[in-house]
């Protein structure tokens, strides 16, 4: 009798225990699979950033619409930039990237330096300080490559172009608005797109400037088009609808 009770007692302890432990093991496996999925997504985004930065460098230095010297005269040589284009870009694109190499999911800032004279040119979106960047930017990557800076047929100096690419709420929202605007201009008609954003900081828009508000600080960049947008006053998830008004040549953005 005693033996039977012991066996029955053990049976009622071991089986539930094994079941509970199995459930715990399953939860661990499930958790690992979830973190695995998150990790590969993060790696994919990091890889995209490396590729995007390389692409921006490549387009800037090889496209006539950007800063490349007219490649036809020099045959197939790339990576030669014209100094007059550098001057123009520096003047024109102080708070926004030029359309020729625009990436609508990220922002970038370029610096070109003449390695013989140390003269530099900068253009593109404004950069962030490290302190602010840590609060507003998810990804940041700097790439550079050597180039030739052409002053004339007999004066071509060695140079280096660096591109810093970064992505945060401001870049994604501004990129979305600009993208819709340019698509609308090209289609010569009213054009509307909606997208959902998870925004961590308030956003304001005034004339052609969009800003991210960080307490007392503000970080701003330009937009390609005249834009009417009330902005976002509180962090949260929003569906932003951007409409290009063809007749008024204006963007109207609502949430």
């Amino acid at each position, binding site marked *: 009798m005693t033996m039977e009770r012991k066996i029955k007692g053990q049976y009622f302890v071991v089986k539930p225990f094994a079941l509970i432990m199995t459930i715990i093991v399953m939860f661990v496996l499930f958790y690992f699979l979830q973190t695995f999925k998150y990790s590969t997504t993060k790696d994919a985004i990091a*890889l995209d950033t490396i590729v995007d930065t390389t692409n921006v460098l490549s387009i800037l230095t090889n496209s006539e619409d950007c800063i490349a010297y007219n490649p036809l005269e020099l045959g197939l040589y790339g990576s030669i930039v014209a100094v007059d284009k550098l001057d123009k870009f520096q003047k024109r694109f102080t708070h926004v990237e030029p359309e020729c190499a625009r990436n609508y999911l990220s922002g970038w800032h370029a610096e070109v330096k003449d390695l013989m004279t140390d003269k530099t040119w900068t253009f593109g979106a404004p950069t962030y300080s490290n302190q602010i960047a840590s609060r507003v930017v998810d990804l940041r990557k700097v790439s550079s490559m050597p180039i030739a800076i052409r002053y004339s047929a007999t004066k071509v100096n060695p140079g280096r172009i660096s591109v810093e690419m970064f992505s945060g709420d401001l870049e994604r929202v501004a990129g979305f608005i600009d993208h819709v605007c340019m698509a609308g201009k090209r289609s010569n008609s009213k054009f509307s797109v909606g997208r959902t954003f998870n925004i961590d900081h308030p956003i304001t828009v005034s004339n052609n400037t969009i800003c991210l508000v960080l307490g007392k600080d503000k970080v701003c960049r330009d937009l390609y088009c005249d834009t009417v947008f009330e902005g976002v006053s509180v962090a949260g998830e929003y569906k932003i609808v951007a409409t290009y008004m063809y007749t008024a040549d204006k963007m109207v953005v609502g949430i």
Partner: protein
Amino acid sequence: MRFMKAQAAEILNFLILVVVVTIVIIVMKAVVIDQKISIQGTAQSSQEEGSFRSGVNAFMVLTEERSGKTFLELLGYVGFLENTTVDLGGPKNPLVINVTQEATERLNKLYGEGKWNLLINIPHRSGLELFVVADTSRSMCDDIMNLKTEIPAILNELKKSGKPTTVNLYFLGGSSQCYWKNNASDPEVHSAVVNCDAFKDIPDFRCHPISELTGAKDKCGYEVNPATEEDWGNGIACVSEAGPGGDGWEDFTVRIGIPLSDEMTKGSECCDPTAPNAADCPQGRISLDNGINSAIKNKVKVFPLRAFPCGIICSSPSESSCDDLTVFRGGQYCVCGNTLLVDWMNEMATKTGGAMFDLAKGSPAQAIKDIAFNVSLDRGPIFLGTPTPEEKRIRTSLIAAPMPNFDYLNVTLKQWT
């Protein structure tokens, strides 16, 4: 007993489940890390490759400040002249560029010090082909007779030194009887007949009148047919084009052209001894340019021998027919031979990678010996930068640099990070 066995089995099942799940987690983590390293490595490598190619393109079009020439052109000059320093000006306005130093500075800026090297592949030479274009005017008799006397021994010496050399002598004029005195105090008027008969039995030595290449034979192009017995500019042009024996050049030999004269090409008669000015001798200038251009095109280095222009010339065995060139025609031949002739010969030498020899300090045969012995057949590559490290990933680009003679030079650029 059965119950105990069942419990043991359940615990065992559970343990197996835990072990399998742990193995799955470990394997998946290893695969993920491996993939992450591989993909990011590929992306990084692709970016570095793009950066390297960009640097190669940039380097080829960079210019040197003073000359305005691209480094692609300058490398071509280095390969053609087989010298790391090139003079793109002339004797009056030298423009000496240390190409390797300038290239090193720029490649250091583009890629960083210690992270690249550049190999300029100069082709090896198989032998030496040498021709002499001799002025046959009266004042050159003594120099030409010196060749006859001394050249056989020199050729013998060259042969013994293992340097395969053929020498071709071209006379610009026809056969001529000439007379001369060695100097003003020489009591004797010497005479000789200058033609190829005097040179016919010398081994490894060929003598030709220039007419072998010109006129109806047109082996050098009518526009450069030497017109006078002093037309050494066109003479160099003609033989450079036709080859030393008139049948073209051997491949990969060192090619040497030697004009021997004491007058400006096409004669010093156009030169004003009171104010020597090259602009007074446009025909001579054309002849000189023809010589330079043809020599460059055919990769001929020119070593002009300037014979002494201030000696004594005679027109007959009689002493009374002799003229002192220091005063003859106002010293025209002497003054112009010491000024414009030197400028022109230096210019031809500099632009073709040669050097001028002044025969006031030696004989033509001795000068030819110096030239032949000092010319090196071994043209090893020119190396710049840092030796290639073994443990790094090396990127390589082959650049074809155009040379002034329309050939191409192979240049290899390597880079690592």
